[in-house]
Every structure is written in C-alpha cells, then in structure tokens.
C-alpha cells in the first residue's frame, strides 16, 4: 500500500440531529502535504478535522490513515495529534510537563522524554520557558507550546484547528513563517483548518475550499486561485470581480460593455476578473476594455484600490500601483478605462 494516500476520507458525512455538517465527502491527503480546509464558519471544515482526529465519529463513511481503517478508533488510538484554536493546554502544569505528558503516557524512559521534550521546545523556540506555568504565557507563546506538545508525539498527521485565529496580525504572520519552517524541518503531513484565505495561500501546498458541508473545489492554491470552479470559490479565495455576460457564437459580451472571443456553447456566463489583472489604460482600441467612474480610492501603501462604477449597479475593484496620478487625475468622479488580458480559465458557466 505504498502509493495509497496517507489519510483518506471515504464518503464521510456527519449530521448533528437534523443539521448536516458534512455531506458525503471524499478526500485524499498525501504524505508530506500541507493541506488546508478553507471555508467560512459553519461550512463543516472543523467537523471534518475532528472526524480525522477521532473526536467526532462520522454518521456514514470511513476514515483511513496509513492504509488502516481507523473510523472506530478514538483520538487516543490514532496516529494524529491536534492543535486546538484555544490551545487546550493543561493549566495546572508547566510548559515542560505539558509537552512531556504524551510521551510519559507511552511510558518512555525518563531520559528519552527529557531529550525529546527539550528538542521540540528548541524547535518552537520556547526552551527558555520550560519551567513556566502555561497560564503565565502570552497567546503566541501558548500556541507554540500547544504546537510543541502535538509535534513531540511525532504524529503521522498533525491537525491544526485554526491555530492562529486568536493571535494578532503581526504575530500571525511570524507564526506563518514559523509553521513553514517547521513543516520543512520535519517533513510531516499537516492538515490546517482556516477561514483566512491569506493564511492558506501562504502556507498550504493543497487546499480544499468548503461550502455548506461539501468540498467545492480542491487543488493547489495557485490552481484554485487562477481557475476557480464557481463564483463561490472565486470570491472566497482572493478578491474577485464577477462580470455577467452572454456567449454567442464563440464571443462573450459583458453586460458592462466589453467583448472577447471564447469558445463554448451559447448561454449566460460569469467572467472572473481579479483586481490585480486590471490595468489603467488611456484609450483602448481593443474590445476588452471597460469604462467607468471612480467611486472611491483606498490607499494600501504598496498599492491603491480603485472602486470603479461601470453601470448603475456594478462596481468593479481594480488594484493599481500608487503613483503621482493618484489624487491628481485619479480622483473620485474621474472617468477611467480599465483593460485586462482575458483568461479562459476564469469563465464560469453560471
């Protein structure tokens, strides 16, 4: 079974009474993946993670890890370890006792426990706090201890349940770097649950975007970003402008005015345009340019977001470099023309 995926969900569904949290989901996670489950709260991503960890038993379907059916095994009998959003550290123990706890349960030799605890505390850079009570630590430090406590077990799959959601932005960024470093250093398989698309983009090697209990799309983050399968995925993973249009005889005509060739059956389509695809042009002879009036300009330091009104009820967001023009010729009320290179992967038949 060497080429079987490390972790597999087969037809897993989970209902809580009348509420269906996860609907018939198949999922394969390979050895070495940094896999992300992305979705808004209530989409079932945490339930799916808990099914993997053994905290929730699926209503139907099975869970396989390393070629073995572990569906009926509790968390204490699975080769997985979980890092919880609110850490779940043992409040009556020190940092070292927290990290050593799982190894002590395995009845390892004292010297082994001490050495492995020490090594993993060094990995998360918490070795100077080993005798502190965990209640005296900051959020970021507690998160590192929780991570160390799970990593020290050498899990086949490390499950991360929104581990950084409680931290502030700056700390979250530095933990992203940290997590990437740790993942590279130990080469393990990580499964991350997150509602933060930026986090997923910067960490994950694969992503599954979830929508009301189902996986809407799965793939490498770049693929999913560049070729979203639905309006939902397009708007959830990154910013997206959705432009309605009609395709007739291989040419798409947008309600906002532009048209460009695209093969496919006649009918209604939605074109996804990412804000960074749009460019400001003077006058364009090409068809794929749309004109509108600036409604709002939002300054982000490195770039500027232009909110441009195309028609009465369509506003498009463009991301452009900051320049002398901004505030001068580009002001609220200025008329601008926007152009982009049509991408056939971003045409949805909805």
């Amino acid at each position, binding site marked *: 079974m060497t080429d079987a995926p490390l972790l597999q969900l087969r037809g897993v569904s989970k209902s809580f009474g009348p509420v269906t949290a996860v609907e018939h989901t198949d999922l394969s996670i390979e050895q070495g993946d940094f896999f992300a489950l992305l979705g808004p709260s209530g989409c079932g991503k945490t339930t799916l993670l808990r099914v993997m960890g053994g905290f929730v038993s699926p209503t139907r379907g099975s869970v396989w890890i390393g070629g073995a059916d572990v569906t009926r095994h509790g*968390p*204490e*009998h699975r080769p*997985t*370890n*979980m890092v919880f959003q609110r850490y779940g*550290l*043992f*409040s009556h123990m020190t940092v070292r006792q927290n990290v050593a706890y799982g190894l002590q349960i395995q009845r390892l030799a004292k010297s082994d426990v001490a050495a492995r605890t020490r090594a993993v505390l060094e990995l998360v850079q918490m070795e100077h706090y080993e005798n502190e009570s965990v209640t005296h630590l900051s959020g970021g430090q507690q998160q590192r201890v929780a991570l160390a406590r799970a990593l020290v077990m050498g899990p086949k799959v490390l499950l991360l349940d929104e581990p950084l959601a409680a931290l502030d932005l700056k700390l979250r960024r530095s933990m992203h770097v940290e997590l990437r470093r740790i993942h590279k250093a130990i080469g393990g398989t990580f499964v991350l649950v997150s509602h933060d698309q930026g986090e997923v983009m910067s960490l994950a090697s694969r992503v599954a975007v979830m929508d009301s209990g189902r996986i809407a799309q799965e793939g490498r983050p770049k693929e999913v970003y560049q070729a979203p399968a639905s309006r939902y995925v397009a708007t959830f993973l990154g910013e997206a402008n959705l432009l309605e249009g009609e395709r007739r005889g291989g040419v798409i005509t947008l309600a906002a005015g532009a048209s460009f060739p695209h093969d496919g059956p006649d009918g209604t389509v939605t074109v996804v345009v990412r804000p960074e695809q749009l460019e400001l042009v003077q006058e364009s002879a090409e068809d794929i340019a749309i004109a509108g009036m600036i409604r709002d300009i939002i300054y982000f330091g490195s770039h500027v977001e232009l909110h441009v009104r195309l028609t009465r009820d369509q506003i498009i967001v463009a991301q452009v470099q900051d320049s002398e023009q901004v505030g001068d010729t580009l002001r609220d009320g200025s008329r601008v023309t926007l152009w982009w290179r049509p991408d056939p992967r971003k045409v949805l038949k909805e």
Partner: protein
Amino acid sequence: MPKGALLAVPATVVYGTLFVAPLAFFLVVSFWHASLFEIIPGFSLDNYVKTVTTYPRSIVFTLTIGLSIAALTTLIAFGFAYVIRFKAGRYGPVLLFMALVTLFGGYLVKIYAWKTILGIDGILNSALLGLGLISEPIDLLLYSSFAVVITLTHYLLPLAILPIYGALRGIDDLEVASARDLGASSSRVMCDIILPQAYFGIIAAFAFAYLISAGDYVTPRLVGGTETRMIGNFIESQFGMRMNTPLGAAMSFTTLVLSALVIVAVGTIFRLFLRRR
C-alpha cells in the same frame, strides 16, 4: 492599609467578635476546673487527660463515623457533579437544580423523613415485606450507625456537590480533549487532568461533610440508637446538665484538633496519590 482593605472590616469584626473571641475564651476556660457549680480559674491539663481517658471510644467512634460519612458523601457528590459537568449536556443545570432544591427541606425534616422510611413499620420494611423479600421487618435499619450515615449523607450531599461542581466547571473541555489526543485513557484523564484541578473543591466538600457530621449530635440522638454515642452528645451534657464548662471546652478542643488533623491527613494522602503518577 492597602486600598480596598476597608471592605474586609465588617467581616473581620463579625468573625472576630462572634467566632475568634468566644473560641479563645473557651480555650482559656478549658484549662480551668469546675467545682460545685463554680468555675475556678487556673492552669491544669486535667480536663484533657480526663477527656482522652474517659471518652476514648466515643472520640474514635466520632472520628470514624465522620470519616465514613465524609468519604461516602464526597464520592457520591463527585460522581453527581461529574455527570452534571461532563455527561449530562443540557440536562446538567436541571440535575444541579434538583440537587439544590433539596436544601429547601430543613435538617429536621430530613431526619424525620428517614425515620419514617427506615422504621420497623416504615416504608422500606413495608415494601420489602409486601414484596415477600423478607419475612419479618429488619429492625437494624433505624436506630443504628447505618441510619446516621444515611441521614447525614443525604443531608450533606447538596452541600458537597456545590464546591466540587464549581471546581469541575473550571476545567476546560479542550484540556480533556487534548489529553485524549495525546493518548490518555479515561482513567488517566481522570487522575492527571480532572482530579488535580478539582483538588480544592473535593477537599472543601470533604472538610464540609466531615466537620458537620463529626460535630453533629442531633441526628445520632434521633435516628442513632444507643450505640451511636457521638462526642458531641457528651460535650452537650457537660455544658448543660453537668455544668462542667471547662471539661466540655477541653473535649471540644480535643475534637477540633483531631478533626483538623484528619482533614490535613486526608488532603495530604490525596495529594500524594495524585503526584505518584
């Protein structure tokens, strides 16, 4: 004076005048002696010698029955509080309310209730006879140590549930989930995560149950029969009929110190048991 210390003044005054001062007075009196309905100041340990030589069986009985009642009460209360906190889900508050509502029934009401349940022609005997399980009523049910244990345990249960439940409420579900995730069996979760964090609640419940039952002399008189001579009964008669306040005081302090020792010992043993692992 630190800021806010003023807030502690009323309680300190009440505690000092109504508890510490009388207690200190009786501590002094316990070294005096009584003679012909008169109390003569002095200093002798006679009263203490008399206490341990005259009432050793009663003291041992009191400490033993207090220990049994406190152990039984704490055990049942822990089980109940554990179910409320971890197993009952949304029915937890209902169970808690049911336990607390029994506090509305007074102390004496409960004693008389148990008299009607346990008596020779009480509910229990009638039921057992009616079912044909026994051929004649069991007279050991009432007027025995057994009756004292049952009655006091029933009375103390809600008082013991509260501190334990309070302590269990402070335990994060995630800590339990994490322990299981790290491979801990149910018994390890209990000994490593739950009991250490509920330690003070459990000891508080135990001390509560122990002190109230070891100091009780009403329950044994009403349901206890002749063999249950609690030290409290003798202390009461020293202060009352015998008018020997010094001896009564000495007996009281002996019991007080022994009770404190029992609680410290139980707390220490429990702590060592938890640390052993």
